[in-house]
């Protein structure tokens, strides 16, 4: 434990040492306790030392120190002080270093001490900063993404035979304008493998390859897509994308203990369920930001027998607002400035996650100043923060472990309390009974054992043991030492000794049994890591330069006024006894209005990105002025409006995109096409072909498990815990179901699973809006030499040898690459198996080399090697 975190409470009343100079006296001075105030203690110092320059109409450096309301705002150099942090306050810095006052007498040590103590005790008497950065600079508000998408007409193009749906028309329009065409449609199996990885994050099984190849129905392709979308594997794949932007982790972050979060997985499962059930995206956001308010949790809690399913789902969904690192513990309330140091940062991160995931905006710049890149004002930033303040309450923080709701209604809870009180009482009674029995038998044991001693010493021993230890004579001491253990055994020895009495055992066994039965009656509820409004009134100050130690004026909840939304943010304060403010619901209703300029665009762009490698806006986290210009602006708006029109159906968007010729293009464009197109559009931003893509960390691990036939298909539940090995590798240890999909592998911020980390699973500090893809030699080493790979290769080899003993090579290629082996390849691989078998046999002496066991083992090893190289090959990790 970090001891420094546990601090003795910081007293608002300070010890004021009245000493002329410690150096002169070297002795303790008199002390008294009283609160320092600006008026009584600080203003007099300022009047003598600072007033010559820092007062009046035109104070130096724009700083008037005589006014309690201008101290925080400060002057040209920024805030003069930070409440509670003298060491980092400009005022203290200047006077303690002797820079101020520049002429005349410097402050005495006593004055410096007073000033310092006053600031550190909370700078009593200072008003909130009056002046804030209220920029009314509107430059940039005309930016395209700040205005609602308007459904464009589908363009008419020349190559109309290439059109499956409007997507193709928009893409062709731009290709034709540049004199380009689409690439041919990819082969069927290529499409199957691509769709399979895109939608489920797994390679197609050999059975589904055969099924698809054998399906000559005109809608075979559509049926294949439908099968993939209906698979529960789809939700696992797409939930992972969302968990990236939500910043999901299974540990609290911040402190080194990196405490695991035992309940976080419920939110992860919620996301998987949401994708699998194609929950409308507007509803999905509403639940995540205000599920408790949307489903009226408090009414259900207080009036219903049990919580309805939608309410439970609603409160679980608010786990979205709990993904930001939050290591708070109950003892944090003893830390000086804990809100500034720990609670506010969690709120800042939460707001960043909300805005970057849903609106593709980097609002965090506006925490410190208005209009850095985008025309977002600091006041708007804090208005949005105010939306969440009623729940988060930095002034009245609830430690992260305690911020949870039970899956229970009030009635259930009351009933449970009543029953559990009964259980407590009964258990207590039983335990009392037990101790009586124990005392009786302890007595009996004493007597029985005493009787076994020579009669002559029995009474002396008894007396020796009865006398208090300090009062014993030498002889008594000797006797006590010698016989105490035998006659009055303690702990386990006593239990063992008493156990010898059959009637003792049956008596206590019976009591224990009754205690256990009582305990089973205890009524416990599942818990949810949720967000909900806390009682009491929340206030939200604008923080000067984003600094919680320089609070400014209060603001009311609101949203981004920069955005041109048909419906403004509307919220009225509820009646005072209301359990929840309705602020988050008002915010998310504003966010999910059909014509919100960003919500639909940002999500369709993400969907697009995961089907093409790059978004229509290449910066999915930044739709603002510094973000990338859309490659196909009309298409983006068409998709956004289509998304809303479909009832915010994500699966509808997949079907559209995967049905398009644009998506179905080959990535391996023929050289003529490629040469022509690359000269005009080297980055393929016009989509003259599909992009070859490498699978990410999780699908890579999942595919390895899948092809080796060991992937578990168990959905949901607590995470597979990870363990750090002595050599530093973090692995999923062997045990029950260690081969579950990677989305179920516990994400500890400080101990990421090694293989996933090596393949670029993002480290979660806030959230990840776009993954990096690196190609480094540690990946090669992991593939070649890690235990995980070795094990996968062995399982894979055994799997293919069992399934197709006559053609393991052909089977291995089919499983790994989702296509039959061609004849050249078959030759190459068969030859490898032959040669490799010989190499293994050569490891043996001539005598053993001919044993059939040795020969078959050598062949098996050769096939393992073959399988290992297939899994390491480019074709396994790249999708055409």
């Amino acid at each position, binding site marked *: 434990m970090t001891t420094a975190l546990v601090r*003795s409470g910081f007293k608002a009343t300070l010890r004021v040492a009245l000493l002329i100079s410690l150096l002169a006296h070297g002795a303790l001075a008199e002390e008294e306790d009283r609160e320092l105030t600006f008026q009584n203690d600080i203003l007099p110092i300022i009047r003598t030392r600072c007033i010559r320059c820092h007062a009046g109409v035109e104070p130096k450096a724009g700083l008037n120190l005589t006014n309690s309301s201008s101290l925080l705002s400060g002057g040209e150099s920024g805030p003069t002080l930070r409440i509670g942090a003298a060491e980092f306050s400009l005022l203290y810095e200047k006077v303690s270093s002797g820079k101020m006052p520049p002429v005349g007498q410097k402050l005495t040590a006593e004055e410096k001490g007073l000033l310092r103590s006053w600031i550190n005790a909370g700078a009593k008497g200072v008003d909130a900063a009056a002046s804030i950065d209220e920029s009314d600079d509107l430059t940039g508000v005309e930016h395209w993404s700040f205005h609602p998408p308007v459904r464009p007409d589908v363009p008419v193009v020349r190559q109309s035979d290439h059109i499956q749906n409007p997507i193709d028309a928009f893409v062709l329009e731009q290709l034709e304008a540049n004199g380009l065409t689409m690439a041919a449609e990819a082969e069927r199996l290529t499409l199957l493998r691509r769709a399979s990885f895109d939608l489920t994050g797994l390679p197609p099984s050999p059975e589904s390859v055969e099924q698809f190849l054998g399906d000559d129905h005109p809608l075979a392709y559509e049926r294949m897509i439908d099968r993939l979308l209906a698979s529960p594997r789809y939700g696992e794949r797409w939930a992972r994308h969302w968990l990236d932007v939500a910043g999901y982790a299974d540990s609290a972050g911040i402190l080194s203990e990196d405490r695991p979060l035992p309940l976080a997985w419920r939110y992860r499962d919620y996301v998987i369920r949401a994708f699998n059930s194609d929950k409308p995206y507007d509803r999905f956001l509403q639940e995540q930001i205000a599920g408790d308010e949307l489903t009226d949790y408090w009414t259900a809690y207080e009036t219903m027998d049990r919580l309805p399913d939608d309410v439970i789902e609603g409160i679980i969904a608010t786990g979205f607002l709990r993904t930001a690192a939050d290591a708070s513990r109950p003892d944090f309330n003893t830390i000086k400035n804990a809100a500034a140091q720990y609670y506010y940062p969690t709120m800042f991160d939460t707001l960043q996650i909300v805005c970057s995931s849903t609106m593709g905006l980097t609002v965090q710049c506006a925490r410190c100043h208005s209009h850095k890149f985008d025309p977002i004002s600091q006041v708007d930033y804090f208005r949005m923060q105010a939306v969440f303040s009623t729940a988060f309450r930095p002034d009245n923080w609830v430690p992260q472990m305690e911020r949870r709701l039970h899956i229970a209604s009030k009635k259930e809870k009351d009933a449970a309390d009543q029953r559990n009180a009964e259980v407590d009482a009964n258990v207590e009674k039983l335990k009392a009974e037990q101790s009586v029995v124990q005392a009786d038998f302890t007595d009996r044991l004493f007597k029985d054992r005493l009787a076994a001693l020579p009669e002559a010493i029995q009474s002396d021993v008894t007396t020796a043991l009865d006398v208090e230890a300090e009062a014993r004579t030498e002889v008594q001491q000797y006797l006590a030492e010698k016989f105490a253990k035998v006659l009055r055994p303690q702990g386990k020895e006593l239990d063992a000794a008493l156990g010898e009495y059959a009637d003792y055992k049956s008596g206590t066994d019976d009591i224990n049994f009754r205690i256990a039965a009582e305990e089973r009656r205890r009524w416990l509820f599942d818990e949810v890591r949720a967000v909900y409004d806390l009682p009491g009134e929340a206030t939200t100050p604008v923080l000067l330069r984003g600094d919680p130690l320089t609070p400014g004026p209060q603001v009311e909840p609101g949203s981004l006024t920069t955005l041109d939304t048909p419906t403004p943010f509307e919220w009225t304060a509820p009646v005072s006894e209301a359990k929840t403010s309705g602020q988050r619901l008002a915010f998310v209703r504003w966010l999910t209005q059909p014509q919100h300029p960003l919500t639909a665009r940002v999500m369709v762009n993400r969907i697009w990105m995961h089907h093409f490698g790059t978004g229509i806006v290449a910066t999915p986290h930044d739709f603002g002025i510094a973000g990338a210009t859309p490659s196909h602006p009309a298409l983006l708006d068409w998709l956004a409006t289509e998304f809303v029109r479909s009832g915010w159906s994500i699966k509808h968007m997949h079907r559209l995109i995967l049905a398009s010729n644009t998506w179905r293009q080959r990535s391996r464009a023929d050289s003529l096409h490629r040469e022509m197109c690359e000269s005009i559009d080297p980055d393929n931003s016009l989509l003259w072909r599909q992009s070859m893509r490498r699978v990410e960390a999780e699908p890579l691990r999942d595919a390895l498990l899948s092809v080796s036939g060991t992937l578990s298909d168990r959905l949901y539940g607590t995470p597979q815990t990870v363990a750090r090995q002595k050599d530093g590798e973090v692995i999923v240890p062997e045990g029950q179901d260690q081969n579950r999909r990677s989305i179920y592998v516990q994400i500890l911020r400080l101990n990421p699973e090694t293989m996933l980390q090596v393949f670029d699973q993002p480290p979660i500090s806030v959230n990840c809006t776009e993954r990096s893809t690196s190609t480094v030699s540690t990946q090669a080493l992991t593939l070649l030499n890690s235990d995980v790979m070795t094990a996968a290769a062995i399982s894979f080899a055994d799997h293919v040898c069992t399934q197709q003993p006559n053609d393991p090579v052909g089977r291995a290629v089919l499983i790994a690459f989702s296509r039959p082996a061609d004849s050249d390849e078959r030759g190459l691989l068969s030859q490898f198996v032959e040669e490799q078998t010989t190499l293994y046999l050569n490891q043996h002496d001539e005598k053993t080399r001919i044993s059939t066991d040795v020969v078959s083992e050598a062949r098996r090893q050769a096939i393992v090697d073959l399988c290992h190289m297939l899994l390491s090959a480019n074709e396994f990790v790249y999708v055409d």
Partner: protein
Amino acid sequence: MSPFDLMSRREALCRFGAGFGGLALNSLFSTPVDAAGIPSPNRAHFEPRAKAVIQLYMHGGPSHVDLLDPKPMLTKFDGTTPPDEVADDENRTKHLMGSPFSFKQYGESGLEFSEIQPFVSQHADDIAVIRSMFTEHRNHEQAIWMAQTGMTIAGRPTLGAWTAYGLGAETSNLPAFVALPDPSGQSVDGVRNWSSGWLPPLYQGTVFREQGSPVLHLQPKEPRPRSIEESRARLLQQLNERHLAARPGELELEARIASFELAGRMQLAATDALDLSQETAETQKLYGLDDDTTKSYGTRCLMARRLVERGVRFVSLFMAGQPWDTHTNNNEGTKTCCQRTDKPVGALLTDLKRRGLLDSTLIIWGGEFGRTPAAEQRDGKAADGRDHHPYGFSMWLAGGGIKGGQHYGATDDFGYRAVEKRTQTADLHATILHQLGLDHESLTWHHNGRDERLTDVYEASVLEELIA
């Protein structure tokens, strides 16, 4: 020889150390670097003074008043309460606690060290002690983030990652940034100490280990015969070449093929770099490898020298846990840390110097903060520990164009607050980058809508007085 060496046909690709991303490929294949792509400057902005950095990170926050910043007044007023001006603002400590260690002047410069650093002090004339450091948080993790990444928030790239991004490696066979954690346990904040944050993962520190295989997965658990390895590698190569032949122009595929080749070369280079048996008995003894107390840290110091010698750009050394966090028994704890590290660090300086490497290797010594001049209170009484202290502490630099034999800045009479030439972390970072030929304002990475830099929003200045 490694089997993968058989096919080292893309030597040129491997300019980039342990990996290569868009840049290496772009520069090699002359495709333009797109605006949102991965631009790495991969070159110095001006003539560097140092080619490499060895960071001796001291987890926990070493006690400056017991090591580098002598305070006679603390001794004089030992046991008394301090004036308000330097009283602990959190009331955790109360009575001033003088250092039990005597300070002496060393070298021609007369730079002062306490007696518990008999080896490092011999290099006084090469060392510049900054006595006026201050930081912004008094909890370890946040202060570590400040020291390592420039701000008190999590998830930013470390100094080593910025250096790797800015300069790449000098060798093709080893990573640019190597972390040497303590095999006996994780340091506080674990892997974040060598994280690349939001820089591409390519720039994160690669962990080299002093026991067992030098790099994780460098070898399989059960080594395969050479001929077997070679034929496996050949098969992989054939599979990949067939795959590539059908996909001409896919640079990523070439890069991935090359990464396997580099892995092969790294197997050799890393094994060689960490083979300390190549060192003479005298050198091994110099680093204290013959003594159980100094062996572990000495091994890492010697590894660091061998890595730097082979072109690694940035090496960070760590100790398990946070041994300098002397909340109790400060004197003994600080002394024990010195016993474990002083001789190896002294040896590192001696060894680099005699090999002519000190001029081009910057050594950074220090932790995330210092310790309080007053003793911690336990049960209302003065105990024997010192608490975390962010307001004034010391760090030292040596080599790499640093002007030794000087102390820079000062704390007040009690070592409480940095008062002269106050030095924020950003100044130190700017100076370190400057010695490497990098301008802290120009070394940027576009992230979340802005050009991020190590020194972020701080107005940082290179500490010119420290430079020779």
